[in-house]
């Protein structure tokens, strides 16, 4: 049994010896370096580009939008974003001009000798300005996309509500901050093929983007993923931009071109988590039952649409949290501003929605004087209940289990009545959050993608997996090899991987949306099952037994003949299976579980095949002199369906939780006139090992019948609940609820001052 075991990470040895090669570790003889010249203003007409004297321009190669042979777009949803600005810039840092040079220093120097002049236009920099639509920068109303989801009769229900609680919550930008910055090497071959390699989550996204830019057929673009130093969504759509730039330069200068951003550039150029303003109005009975809810979410999309509609849709669907409310209306819109486009980041709209909904629970519990636990127990979803989109939850609903587990493991009830330390100016607080996250693409997404994966026998008699799902640290290679090994009676070591190269592996869909294990893992399992069936058939015909009698166990194929057990090694069987054809490869494609229905127009039905559930308890100590927060302990309980590899599953939960705590504690982008003031690690603050205490991670297994061995997607879930649990703990300690994150000491102080004034 390998599924369920914490086998070692497949590429672990390479990663601890320095052997793993990331894109910046590749050096080619004749390589050139690319540099991007960016807008310095938020909204303007470009009036001129000057190439200043004092630099020998013959030593470098320049490219601008006129060098794009087909469509000047970053291909995604609306195709509204140009790869290079033409006459208009819509945000600071928008790419305008590219420079390639034989050395990085020379490219940098050239960039300093470019002077761009602008005629400034009024800039829309905030959600409020965008909503007012005084200055129109997208359509008539600056709205990229809006959704409304309604159930029941909201107005009537508010009439009968005994208590109404209303509050608005604010969240800011968050940077993914993978430690490896974005990087791509592009090569233009003499036959017109463009070769891209680099750091990315979704090779096929890059593939499509490059095809669109140059009008090339599939086979003329080859994209290879290198070892990738973290993504978290930040390398979902954004590498298409870097790859487009590098490819354009490579075509023009005739050398392979490397673009690896230094940190400051990566920070300003790449996408971030959408800021949001979320208003909750909730009607309840006096004893705390939700009967009516109105939730309005407004996301700041930035200057271009990127993936914003999909991010918003996930936020809208998760807006209420894992609770029942018969009468509810959720409205959501994502608006345009003249700020850098926001995009994918682990959680994809849910961390924003979840912060608001869970803090609202905290506010309700205070207003009604009901314990946070009781409030959740009264309203939580159980098996058989209906979600906000009218989806009936029929399996794998771990709500009660995660709540019970986290309360027990953290000793929440006893600790909540904990006495404050006497004579000290420190206050103890404990906070709870309870949340869920849908696995895979929203609605009909997976049906459209139809992710594929294949498995084949190798000449050495082992197995190779072919998939475009990338390893970005989350453990794709390890769990896929466990799944295939389990299916075929092998060890994970017997399973290898085809290079993640679009000319070699099928499109499994992007490595996003918590879908790799649950969706693609299932496809890989199906492909392995077909391989097994095919091998059994071929061996059966040689051995003259029934295919169904053949067992795959302990790296052998076994069957009985005349009461005797016959066995051949897997390698030998593989060789026999391939003797005639020379190869054996099986491919599988995703299909939704039976009975899944989704209506894109009314936004109702089965939004996701299944949800993963979790609850967090965070304990803090707040220093009442400095308002600094020290996190004392974090306990999480997560219903993962099945932990294919418990160590890796815990790693996902711990890592995601710490990103969430950073989001709640201090991660914030500071802006001035559309420019980022803190684009360095010294001033954009992420948690160090000393900011985070030991964590307790409880895994609960509530198998999902259509996932590989019952597994559900948990990649993003842990990003959702950390911030509200933290801020609830702070509220418990100081008595004031901070409604905007990060809950910096400054904000905590202000919330306390406000409370003192009110009292």
């Amino acid at each position, binding site marked *: 049994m390998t599924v369920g075991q914490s086998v070692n990470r497949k590429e672990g040895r390479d990663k601890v010896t320095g052997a793993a090669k990331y894109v910046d570790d590749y050096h080619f003889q004749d390589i050139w370096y690319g540099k991007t010249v960016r807008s310095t203003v938020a909204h303007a007409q470009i009036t001129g580009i000057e190439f200043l004297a004092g630099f020998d321009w013959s030593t470098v190669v320049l490219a601008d939008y006129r060098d794009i042979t087909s469509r000047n777009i970053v291909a995604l949803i609306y195709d509204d974003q140009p790869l290079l600005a033409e006459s208009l810039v819509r945000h600071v840092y928008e790419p305008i001009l590219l420079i390639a040079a034989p050395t990085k220093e020379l490219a940098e120097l050239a960039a300093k000798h470019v002077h761009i002049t602008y005629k400034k236009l009024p800039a829309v920099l905030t959600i409020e300005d965008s909503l007012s639509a005084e200055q129109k920068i997208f359509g008539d109303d600056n709205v990229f996309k809006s959704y409304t989801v309604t159930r029941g009769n909201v107005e009537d229900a508010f009439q009968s509500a005994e208590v109404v609680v209303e509050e608005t919550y604010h969240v800011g930008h968050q940077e993914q901050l993978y430690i490896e910055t974005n990087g791509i090497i592009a090569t233009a071959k003499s036959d017109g093929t463009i070769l891209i390699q680099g750091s990315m989550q979704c090779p096929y996204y890059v593939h499509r983007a490059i095809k669109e830019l140059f009008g090339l057929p599939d086979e003329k673009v080859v994209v290879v993923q290198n070892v990738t130093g973290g993504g978290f969504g930040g390398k979902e759509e954004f590498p298409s931009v870097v790859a487009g730039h590098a490819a354009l330069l490579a075509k023009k200068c005739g050398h392979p071109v490397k673009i690896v951003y230094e940190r400051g550039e990566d920070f300003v150029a790449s996408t971030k988590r959408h800021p949001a303003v979320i208003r909750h109005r909730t009607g309840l009975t006096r004893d705390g039952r939700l009967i009516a809810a109105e939730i309005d979410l407004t996301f700041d999309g930035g200057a271009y649409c990127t993936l914003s509609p999909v991010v918003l849709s996930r936020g809208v669907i998760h807006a209420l949290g894992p609770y029942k409310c018969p009468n509810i209306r959720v409205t959501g819109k994502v608006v345009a501003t003249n700020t850098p486009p926001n995009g994918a980041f682990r959680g994809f709209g849910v961390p924003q929605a979840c912060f608001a909904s869970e803090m609202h629970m905290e506010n309700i519990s205070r207003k009604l004087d009901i314990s946070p636990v009781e409030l959740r127990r009264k309203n939580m979803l159980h098996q058989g209940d209906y979600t906000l989109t009218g989806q009936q939850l029929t399996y794998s609903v771990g709500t009660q289990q995660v709540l019970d587990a986290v309360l027990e493991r953290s000793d929440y009830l006893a600790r909540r009545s904990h006495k404050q330390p006497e*004579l000290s100016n420190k206050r103890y607080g404990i906070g709870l959050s309870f949340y869920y996250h849908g696995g895979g693409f929203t609605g009909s997404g997976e049906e459209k993608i139809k992710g594929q994966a294949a498995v084949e026998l190798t000449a050495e008699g082992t197995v190779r997996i072919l998939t475009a799902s990338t390893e970005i640290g989350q453990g794709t290679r390890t769990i896929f090899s466990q799944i295939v090994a389990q299916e075929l009676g092998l060890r994970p070591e017997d399973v290898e991987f085809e290079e993640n190269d679009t000319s070699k592996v099928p499109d499994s869909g992007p490595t996003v949306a918590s879908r790799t294990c649950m969706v693609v893992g299932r496809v890989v399992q199906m492909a392995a099952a077909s391989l097994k069936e095919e091998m059994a058939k071929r061996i059966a015909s040689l051995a003259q037994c029934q295919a169904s009698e053949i067992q795959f166990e302990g790296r052998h194929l076994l069957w009985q003949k005349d009461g005797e057990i016959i066995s051949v090694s897997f390698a030998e069987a593989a060789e026999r299976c391939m003797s005639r054809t020379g190869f054996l490869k099986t491919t599988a494609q995703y299909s939704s579980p039976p009975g899944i229905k989704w209506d894109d127009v009314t936004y109702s039905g089965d939004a996701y095949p299944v949800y993963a559930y979790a609850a967090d308890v965070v304990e803090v100590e707040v220093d009442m002199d400095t*308002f600094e927060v020290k996190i004392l302990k974090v306990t999480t309980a997560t219903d993962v369906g099945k932990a294919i590899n418990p160590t890796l599953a815990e790693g996902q939960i711990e890592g995601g939780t710490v990103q969430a705590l950073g989001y709640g504690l201090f991660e914030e982008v500071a802006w001035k006139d559309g420019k980022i003031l803190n684009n360095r690690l010294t*001033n954009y603050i992420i948690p160090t090992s000393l900011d985070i205490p030991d964590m307790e991670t409880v895994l609960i297994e509530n198998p999902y019948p259509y996932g590989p061995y019952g597994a559900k997607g948990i990649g993003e879930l842990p990003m959702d609940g950390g911030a509200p649990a933290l801020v609830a703990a702070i509220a418990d300690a100081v008595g004031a609820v901070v409604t905007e994150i990060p809950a910096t000491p400054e904000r905590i102080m202000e919330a306390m001052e406000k409370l003192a004034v009110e009292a």
Partner: protein
Amino acid sequence: MNKVYSPKELSEAFQILNSYQPLKIVAGGTDLMVGYNSGMPVPDQLLNLWKLDELRHIDEYPSLLKIGALCTYTQLIKDERVRKYAPTLVDAAKTIGAMQIQNRGTLGGNIVNASPAGDCLPVLAAFDAVIEIGSVRGLRQVPFTDFYTGYRQTVLAEDEMVTNILLPKQKTEESAKFYKVGTRAAQAISKVMMSVRASIDAQKCVKEIAIAVGSVAPTVIRTRLTEMAIRGLIIDESLIATARKEMMEEVRPITDIRSNEHYRRTVSGNLIAKFLRENYLA
């Protein structure tokens, strides 16, 4: 290519400073290299102090410690005499960056870099340290509180360097504290930091007090008005309130990306109140 001079003798360093200007001094490089890496031009001529072992000594005298400018934070933290006679300097050193920075960053660099957020500076100010400055013209001593002439400006002449820091020992009857309020638990730049040294008798009377605050003005400051408001009085609720109020009036903080004026002012007040309260309870 840049020219780097790497003398092994202090006298040689003085000669180089005298002969080759303009010249940039580099000690541990933890401030300078950050600038160079982010696009600041690297000067043509540099004086690398790293090999000057003469500036790595810590010597004990009856009433003070003489600390070489090139002592790293790690060295300060580990040194028994510093731990015993200047525990607040050790506390400050421990909050600087993390291990990699503590192994390389120097006390001299922290002083001459002259950032208002330099963490050791309030300790030096509260303890009335004296800076020893050297050049071919000889050595001279400047009280630390006179060392800065403005925002990131020092009394150093072009051909001078800091050689040693003379730090009065903390006396047994003194109570001292270093507080740092940073952006996070490690690798943090200060929003406010305060160093307090006081002699408080058994009747809780504050006989003597020195308070230095960082990150609340263009340079580290001694809050002499607040000191005056406390000196000679017995700690009670009303003194604590007065001290808090005086401090909030005396500091001159600004709003920047790390924090805001209101917070810095409030916390400065709270920290002096905390010091008095803890001594009162002690």
